[in-house]
């Protein structure tokens, strides 16, 4: 995900928001003063008497507890812990008294980097680093002012510590004791923020607040939502967007015990039943037949041919510098290579689902969704009501990875509730989730490079082909120059010093809907450029690490993570027989990650990844434990894709359906992963995605070192590696 809007959070609009929120807090009880839905605001007020709510983000109650409202959605990336940490730090709260609640969908919780309430693009910390700290600092200043008034002292004489205001003569009042007086204080125009050196919570490894509920089964995911009288829907989904239903045996579905309704909507035929099993049996009985139109012959061979053709015609220029033709004439060595990757499914552990209830002019959904804000608008359109009447209950997500940014499952559930008149919980089967979904684009690049006599690169040409996420997203547009920024990210802005370059994009649309997949374009482009740079190093007879470093003179943060990962991994030192190192680096979402993979290849061609050492510079940190875990997880996600991941097509349909033909990494294949976080005073970077891009090239570069085989296609084809090592 790339930010749709960049927003200066110190902007007047932003300040107005804080002020408006604070001003309303003079009325004790309006916990969420900017709520646009009176009914909800009233409900909040009833439960919130004696509550100090200086802004939309936090409440303090007389029992001295702090509750932080998190507008971002939790999909494992730890926002339900990191967001409260930011507010608690500036509030000087006792962390053991801090809790978190999922905020409702409301403009007050818009992600400033998106201009809407949505979770993606590794933006949560970057977007909320200042607003949440300001929220905490404003509340603290008001609590101090309240104590100063009570003690008849100058606020400057007071300090705060662990949810208490302390006076110079040993006076002490808990925040809880000050809630009513604090609510009468003016909201500070510019709350003073701490210097990072004074941080007590931010920057320290902190346990997740949501762990206990995830260990005893009580955590509520979207699929766990339930209301009386709801029906469960399972759909025969159109295999491709635009497919037309030819036939479906509705009578057979209705004959299944427990089936209550069969409804055809644009995306397929839904069977509504008393429970999942009856709905699925009914769905299977439909035996739905589809007319795939001009996509009936879609195959992976066709996709590959289209990609090749697209690269040959790549005309949307993302980067042009110097003169590549002139440089080619001077080169003493020329290299050409073509790399490609397939479509990929997200394969979240929790199959997509949504419970929707359309009642008169109100829509309520319970869903694990990354796009609560946009859902209000989209579902409002479906129900023909104003977005403000769409209530979104954000549930925990059993994985998101970008897939839950799409509105398809919440749209279908809403439509089915509207048409049936019942609350409807739509559940995708695993096969539905995988076969009729949204995919990481298949992509292909044709590289050309020229080296001088010393092995230094004189030129780089890259012609990239693939479908456009921007054009197909429904909320972005392909810019006039025709370059999909996501198709070339990480490639058109690679950091290596090469004077003559041309990087161009050729849009190809084979048919399957494409979408954001953890690290988006970086997921394939880091594999492309970091493998090809390795090829250049080999051609130059140079060490892959040293070759990179000398081309990165102007990029100290890239250099630092490369050097740290190499040092921690023991780059250049002796490894067990048959083991080799590969290295790769990538900057994405504002963070820098280098990885060294230690790999061996068996006689049957199976690669074994023994160890991965990652070095990360993500600027200032909030929760280092989360950073470490996100990098580990991103490596597992990228490694699953590198080793196994492919969505292929035959006769217009996806060939994979479940984890037997779309395998993912299991515990026995888990390498030892070490994550080293570099100290930094820079602005925070994203952390959910940046660990994924380097892993595929690091592993493939190690395989090259072990076997001499350059892998230019993912997933790794073990047949190419048979008997290539000792």
């Amino acid at each position: 995900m790339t930010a749709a809007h960049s927003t200066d959070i110190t902007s007047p609009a932003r300040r107005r928001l804080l002020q408006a929120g604070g001003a309303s807090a003079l009325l004790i009880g309006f916990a969420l003063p900017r709520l646009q839905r009176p009914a909800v605001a009233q409900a909040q007020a009833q439960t919130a008497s004696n509550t100090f709510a200086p802004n939309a983000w936090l409440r303090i109650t007389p029992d001295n507890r702090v509750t932080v409202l998190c507008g971002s959605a939790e999909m494992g990336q730890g926002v339900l812990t990191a967001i409260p940490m930011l507010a608690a730090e500036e509030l000087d709260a006792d962390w053991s008294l801090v809790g978190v609640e999922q905020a409702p969908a409301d403009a007050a919780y818009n992600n400033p980097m998106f201009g809407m309430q949505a979770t993606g693009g590794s933006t949560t910390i970057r977007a909320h680093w200042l607003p949440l700290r300001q929220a905490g600092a404003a509340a603290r200043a008001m609590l101090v002012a309240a104590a100063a008034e009570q003690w008849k002292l100058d606020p400057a004489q007071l300090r705060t510590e662990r949810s208490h205001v302390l006076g110079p003569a040993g006076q002490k009042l808990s925040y809880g004791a000050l809630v009513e007086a604090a609510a009468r204080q003016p909201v500070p125009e510019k709350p003073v923020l701490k210097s990072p050196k004074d941080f007590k919570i931010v920057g320290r490894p902190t346990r997740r607040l949501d762990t206990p509920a995830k260990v005893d089964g009580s955590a509520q995911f979207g699929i766990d939502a339930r209301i009386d009288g709801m029906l469960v829907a399972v759909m025969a989904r159109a295999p491709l967007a635009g497919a037309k239903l030819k036939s479906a045996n509705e009578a057979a579905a209705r004959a299944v015990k427990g089936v209550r309704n069969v409804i055809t909507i644009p995306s397929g035929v839904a069977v509504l039943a008393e429970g999942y099993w009856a709905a699925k049996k009914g769905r299977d009985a439909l035996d739905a037949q589809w007319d795939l139109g001009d996509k009936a012959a879609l195959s992976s061979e066709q996709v590959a041919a289209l990609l090749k053709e697209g690269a040959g015609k790549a005309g949307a220029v993302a980067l042009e510098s110097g003169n590549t033709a002139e440089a080619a004439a001077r080169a003493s060595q020329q290299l050409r290579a073509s790399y490609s990757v397939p479509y990929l499914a997200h394969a979240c552990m929790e199959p997509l689902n949504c419970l929707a209830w359309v009642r008169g002019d109100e829509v309520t959904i319970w869903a694990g969704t990354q796009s609560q804000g946009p859902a209000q608008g989209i579902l409002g359109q479906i129900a023909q009501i104003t977005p403000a009447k769409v209530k979104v209950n954000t549930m925990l997500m059993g994985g998101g990875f970008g897939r839950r940014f799409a509105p398809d499952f919440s749209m279908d559930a809403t439509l089915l509730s509207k048409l049936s008149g019942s609350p409807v919980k739509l559940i995708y089967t695993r096969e539905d989730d995988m076969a009729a979904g949204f995919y990481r684009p298949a992509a292909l690049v044709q590289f050309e490079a020229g080296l001088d006599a010393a092995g230094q690169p004189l030129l780089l040409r890259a012609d990239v082909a693939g479908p456009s996420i921007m054009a197909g997203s429904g909320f972005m547009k392909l810019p006039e120059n025709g370059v999909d920024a996501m198709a070339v990210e990480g490639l058109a802005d690679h950091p290596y010093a090469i004077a003559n370059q041309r990087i161009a994009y050729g849009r190809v649309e084979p048919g399957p809907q494409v979408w954001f997949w953890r690290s988006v374009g970086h997921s394939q482009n880091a594999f492309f450029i970091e493998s090809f740079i390795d090829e250049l190093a080999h051609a130059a007879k140079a060490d892959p690490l040293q070759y990179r470093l000398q081309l990165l003179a102007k990029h100290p943060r890239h250099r630092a993570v490369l050097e740290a990962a190499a040092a921690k991994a023991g780059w250049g030192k002796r490894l067990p027989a048959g083991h080799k190192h590969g290295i790769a680096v990538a900057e994405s979402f504002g963070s820098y990650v280098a990885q060294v993979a230690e790999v061996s290849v068996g006689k049957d061609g199976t690669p074994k990844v023994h160890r991965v050492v990652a070095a990360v510079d993500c600027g200032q940190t909030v929760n280092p434990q989360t950073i470490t875990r996100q990098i580990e997880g991103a490596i597992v996600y990228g490694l699953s894709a590198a080793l196994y991941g492919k969505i292929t097509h035959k006769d217009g349909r996806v060939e994979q359906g479940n984890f037997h033909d779309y395998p993912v990494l299991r515990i026995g294949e888990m390498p030892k992963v070490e994550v080293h976080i570099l100290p930094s005073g820079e602005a925070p970077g994203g952390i959910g995605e940046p660990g994924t891009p380097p892993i595929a090239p690091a592993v493939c570069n190690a395989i090259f070192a072990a076997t001499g085989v350059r892998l230019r296609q993912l997933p790794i084809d073990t047949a190419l590696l048979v008997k290539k090592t000792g």
Partner: protein
Amino acid sequence: MSIQLTVNGKAATLDADPDSPLLWALREELQLTGTKFGCGMALCGACTVHLDGQPVRACSTPLSAAAGKKITTIEGVGASKTGRAVQAAWIKIDVPQCGYCQSGQIMSACALLAAKKKPSDADIDQAMGGNICRCGTYQQIRGAIHDASAQLNRKGG
């Protein structure tokens, strides 16, 4: 058809199709939603429960096979010493990310530790190989199993 189940020590009578999976009876009839749906084909382990102490995939276990047996789910596993130790280790090591697979992981880990007090890494690979985690918490899962094992052995279990 009427089916008798014993879940977490409590008797329950369901009017259900004996061929339907145990998973949906637990989730929809008994509202024990800690047991998760992941694949429907016994491929991912998210729905792991114990049937007379043995780990089974509830998505592929027909109700008829569960009738009359003792069923333990994530909501009830803490009643046993092993379950308590495993859940405590999961909290201590702060294992979960998204958390969706963790009920199944914990149920598989408890069954492993009940059968083998000091599992090796190879034992863990074997016993936990049927449980997928897309967030990649495998290192923490392994660490938590070793930790729970140490706790159980220290207590002279």
